[in-house]
């Protein structure tokens, strides 16, 4: 029986051999680290290094951004990269394309049907409430589309509702405790497909909005600004929370903002449609302007 992994290797080999893409971005197993790492395959014969299974937890979408940033300083010829995506990762690719960080024809999206990654007995939270076993956007799809999917309940949303029910002082002390542990390592930012500023305000010397001290207050400003910056654009891939070395439940914030935006503007999930118009960056002549 051919597995998705076999199909993937063959697809990658063909794409590279025929010159359809310059690079296939997928996962490879790193024996030393004992984990799946991003793998940039540029030669057809290396396609066999690619893997696809439950170990492929990390989203590759942000690497498109990093590639572009590196390439833009040396690249002269137009190039095309194939990227392997799970459903959640595909939404990150949509984010990057929709934010015009790459042209659509610079990316070939290889979608894989995914039934969840990580330890089968202890799946990441996002897998337990996954609605996108099939990537919402792809050029090639590997694997069988499941016949019936049911929308699972969202424990994360329930958690958000629970926190909303607390009184202000409890919420403040809850977040104060979490943010006081933040190291400002910015891992959450680095893995975020929506964080695509050329220069982050937290790296800027000119800003007076915030300082670099790692006090609970400053950290709170950092996380608040980040939440608002990605509001309406966050694709809920959960990479920020996964990358956080201090275990800060960042998705509780992102989920709160995302659910508020869905309620306020009646929009679909972010990152499921290449034509999407994030509600906070849209203008229509019909917008209410009686306050002007």
């Amino acid at each position, binding site marked *: 029986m051919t597995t998705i992994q076999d199909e993937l290797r063959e697809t990658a080999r063909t794409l590279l051999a025929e010159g359809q893409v310059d690079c296939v971005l997928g996962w490879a197993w790193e024996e030393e680290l004992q984990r799946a790492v991003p793998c940039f395959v540029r030669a057809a014969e290396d396609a066999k290094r690619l893997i696809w299974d439950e170990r492929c937890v990390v989203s590759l979408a942000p690497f498109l951004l990093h590639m572009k940033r590196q390439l*833009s*300083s*040396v*690249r*002269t010829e137009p190039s095309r990269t194939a990227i392997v995506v799970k459903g959640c990762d595909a939404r990150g690719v949509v984010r990057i394309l929709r*934010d*015009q*960080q790459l042209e659509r024809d610079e990316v070939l999206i290889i979608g894989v049907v995914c039934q969840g990654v990580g330890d089968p007995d202890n799946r990441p939270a996002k897998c337990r409430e996954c609605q996108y076993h099939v990537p919402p956007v792809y050029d090639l799809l590997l694997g069988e589309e499941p016949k019936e999917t049911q929308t699972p309940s969202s424990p994360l949303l329930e958690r958000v509702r629970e926190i909303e029910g607390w009184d202000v002082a409890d919420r403040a002390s809850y977040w104060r405790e979490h943010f006081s542990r933040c190291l400002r390592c910015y891992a959450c930012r680095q893995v975020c497909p929506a964080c*695509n*500023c*050329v*220069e982050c*305000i937290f790296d*800027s010397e000119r800003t*007076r*909005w915030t300082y670099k001290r790692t006090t609970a207050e400053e950290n709170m400003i950092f996380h608040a600004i980040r939440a608002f*910056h990605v509001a309406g*654009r966050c694709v809920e891939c959960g990479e920020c929370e996964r990358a956080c070395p201090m275990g800060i439940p960042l998705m509780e914030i992102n989920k709160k903002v995302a659910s508020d935006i869905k309620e306020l503007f009646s929009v679909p999930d972010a990152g499921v449609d290449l034509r999407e*118009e*994030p509600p*906070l*960056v*849209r*203008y229509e*002549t*019909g917008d209410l*302007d*009686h306050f*002007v």
Partner: protein
Amino acid sequence: MKRVGVFVCHCGSNIAGTVDCAAVVAAARRIPAVAYAEDNKYTCSEVGQEQIRKAVQTHNLDRVVVAACSPRMHEATFRKTIASVGLNPYMLEIANLREQCSWVHSDRQAATAKAIDLVRLAVAKVLYNKPLFTSTLPVKKRAVVIGGGIAGIQAALDIAEAGHPVTLIERSQSIGGRMAQLDKTFPTLDCSSCILMPRMVDVGAHPMIDLMTYSEVEEVDGFIGNFRVKVRQRAKSVDHSKCTGCGECTEKCPTQVPAEFEAGLGERKAIYTDFPQAVPNKPVIDRDHCRYFLDGKCGICRKVCQADAIDYTQTDRQVEIEAGAIVVATGFDLFDPAKYGEYGGGRYPDVITGLQFERLISASGPTNGEIRRPSDGRVPETIAFIKCVGSRDEAHGVPYCSRVCCMYTAKQAMLVKEHAKDSKVYIFYIDVRAAGKGYEEFYQRAQTDAGATYVRGRVAKIFPRGEKLVLWAEDTLIGKQLELEVDLVVLATGIVAREGAVEFAQKMGISYDGHRFYSEAHPKLRPVDTNVDGIFLAGACQGPKDIPDTVAQASAAAVKVCSIFSKEELETNAMVATVDENICAGCFHCRAVCPSGAIDSKILHAWVAGQDVTRRVATVNSGVCQGCGSCAAACPSGAMNVGGFSNEQILGEVEAL
């Protein structure tokens, strides 16, 4: 070292009555960056401005805070003041101590504390002000006038007479508008047609006026001096270059359609002109009713046309006009009395509107000027006029006064005497408002000469009894209920904004009020300007107006247009958005939210490691940008900044609080 001057204005007692200006000055002097502070009775006066000039020179000030009224009032004044002594005009901030402090507070101590805070904010902001500069753009010397009623006609003629080309755009077949529907006009009783028609002819014949009838504005882009107006010219189905206007086609057309011009009391043909004196006096085919277009049969008009002008194959045409200024003169609608169920809600044929009455008494109207009941054609013996139908009635209509109904009702009462001199006239009113020149005298004549009986009170109910209509009302002056049998009821329906007024305002980016009338830039000092530079208002689209006021406003708008055209180049707004190209990520969220279409993309080249590498970033067209700041709010990277409202300035204010 930055040296700020603070000038606190008393505004007579407007500010000083509530705010302790001396205390504000004392507090300002304690702010480290403030090199000089003083108060004046009227800072905007010549004396006050001279004080500023002198202080700038004596104390070597490099930026100024004026704590006075709203910046909308005098920001421009004080910019000129500081510019005259060599400062960049944008090194100025206004602390609004009047509208935002003294006028809205009564507690002197608290108001003074707030005034001090406002001054501290302005000082903190002005410290981050940077010199801003304008550039110039050439002016397209053509005006577009939208709407061919008396307002549009007057504006177009005035502009054309000044020597500038005008495109006058009218939605219906002919220009003339509401005024063409009227019989006579108050307070002189001169014939509406006799004074309007010559102007219509002038418009049609004027070499500087390009008349586009049967056309609608679809899109307005651009900015003062350089607008682009997209117009859809609907297919007339008649080649007007061949048509001689003989009227044979209209005569022979077998299709009857209710005539818009006759306010529903008469009919027109499917190939028609709005009225016999229409300009242009060449017909159009109403494709929604023409038999040829409905089922492909008929074609009579083509057979009878000697000039071979009928062209069923014409299509709508899109025309783009480049113009330097726009006059909006889109007029008004009449309140629909169907909302008054107690007056029959449109069920009784002999309850008509004031405009329908105008058509009844018009010599060219459906009854050739005889007052006849729509139901049976009988001349009414008793006529009741009911005023304030829709106006001043929040329950059914609008809270405002429509301004014209008192006078047109008085006029109609006088015309009853001319047309049916034995008829008895009752007029039901709440108040009589006759505040124009010669209006009160006219109203008195309606009572004395025309013998109209004015009854103070609202009519509660109208219902038919046999051939008559019965009115129940209260005469509030004698406090008695009364019942009256009449033959005809005329409702003085009020003026409301055009259907679609809001959508049209949004196309142009001009603002409108809660009643959908277009807003003037300042209610007293800029009554014909809109919030968009280069777009002006004329007539009832801005609010209820009679003919003299409409004509006056139209001429005023024309002068405003001419003053733009008197320059070869216009200065652009200096307070526009700028892009920090170093940090722009090229996501173009700014372009999606820009209401003016001012944002473009450009390719940035950099020489990196011996290679020419490119990056796409946003760029702002400073001539188009209105400085609204939407882009700055949408930009995730903070690359967008609006001159005069930069992040540094705003943050300065926040820190000062």
